[in-house]
């Protein structure tokens, strides 16, 4: 009897589900939204990832890694021919052009002892945004970039700055926790806990320069960060790639159309 009842209940509920499905007044449908490129690159056949002024992490050479990653992504994309050449020594060029490392003129009347000048052979410490500022003038040096453009047959030049720095943060974090009530039923409840977290912040600025004129066509700045539990040991390079992965679609969308996949609901 019980088995028959159970069977009847099961068939009734199946019938109900079938009826609900038949009466559904909406349909999920996959869509692909095309996003137009931000920059018209039709005038260029070649692209040169020239290098970046980078700093802040001794485990990751943000300049070399960014150059390598962007070149390989652009090669896969096949938008333009990627020039495979040595990166430019931008820090040295910026220093040589004088404005970055103009030494302060010593005041003979000053009572304070002269400040020891930094060793010019030692790599500068670039931990923060403001540390990069003294070098930014290199990107506006039209004559320099025009010369580079002539050297590489007038490509689209990509340069800029990359700051990849460790960060630490502590505070309350909301996370979900599994709990079981007195009947053994599982529930997920939000719990606020105080946590020490550490991770990295990636802040690249990509500057697109016209190799024919040396002028800046487009500038784009991104900021991505990642935080882990303080006791979690994640290699800096893994974090760097994880953060770059997030912003690569937007970078590529500067040069070529992108399609963003998603799902929408159609109504009857």
């Amino acid at each position, binding site marked *: 009897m019980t088995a028959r009842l159970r069977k009847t209940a099961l068939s009734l509920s199946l019938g109900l589900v079938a009826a609900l499905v038949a009466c559904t*007044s*909406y*349909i999920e*449908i996959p*869509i*692909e*939204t*095309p*996003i*137009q490129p*931000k920059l018209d690159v039709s005038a260029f056949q070649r692209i040169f990832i020239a290098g970046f002024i980078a700093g802040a992490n001794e485990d990751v050479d943000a300049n070399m890694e960014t150059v390598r990653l962007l070149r390989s992504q652009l090669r896969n994309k096949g938008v333009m021919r990627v020039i495979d050449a040595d990166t430019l020594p931008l820090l040295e060029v910026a220093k040589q052009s004088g404005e970055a490392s103009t030494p302060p003129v010593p005041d003979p009347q000053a009572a304070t002892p002269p400040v020891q000048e930094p060793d010019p052979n030692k790599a500068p410490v670039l931990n923060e945004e403001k540390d990069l500022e003294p070098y930014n003038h290199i990107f506006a040096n039209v004559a320099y970039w025009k010369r580079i453009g002539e050297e590489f047959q007038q490509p689209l030049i990509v340069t800029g700055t990359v700051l990849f720095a460790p960060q630490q943060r502590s505070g309350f974090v909301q996370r979900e926790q599994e709990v079981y009530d007195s009947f053994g039923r599982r529930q997920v409840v939000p719990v606020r806990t105080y946590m020490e977290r550490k991770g990295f912040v990636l802040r690249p600025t990509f500057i697109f320069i016209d190799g024919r004129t040396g002028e*800046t066509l*487009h*500038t*784009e*700045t991104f900021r991505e960060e990642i935080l882990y539990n303080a006791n979690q040991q994640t290699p800096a390079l893994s974090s760097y790639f994880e953060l770059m992965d997030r912003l690569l679609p*937007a970078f590529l*969308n*500067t040069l070529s159309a992108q399609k*963003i996949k*998603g799902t*929408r*609901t*159609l*109504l*009857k």
Partner: protein
Amino acid sequence: MSVRPLVLALFLVVTSAPHAWAEQRGQAKEQVEFGIQVAQRGLWKEAIYRWERATQLDPTYAAAFNNLAVAYEHEGQLAKAREAYEKALAIEPNNALVRQNYDLFKEINDRAAQKDGAQS
């Protein structure tokens, strides 16, 4: 002068209005359903034509505007998509499915709009 014909005419107008509305909604619904069928086969331009017809037949049909917005989004016509979503929400402000579509659309639209802000 009898008022009888006037009353009769008024009566006919009043009684036939809901019928006409139901007929228009019925025709619009047919267009919407056909649009869904073709969209599922990837024929989005045909779907746009059908859903545009549906909105013309019944400008109070939120589903038609919603579907039209989805199709415009798929075709990359983001300004038109926004307009259609907003019309759908103006008709049915509490429709959670339209709201969800619109929120997802806004994410993409904001991304596309960022390019102008980021340009130097």
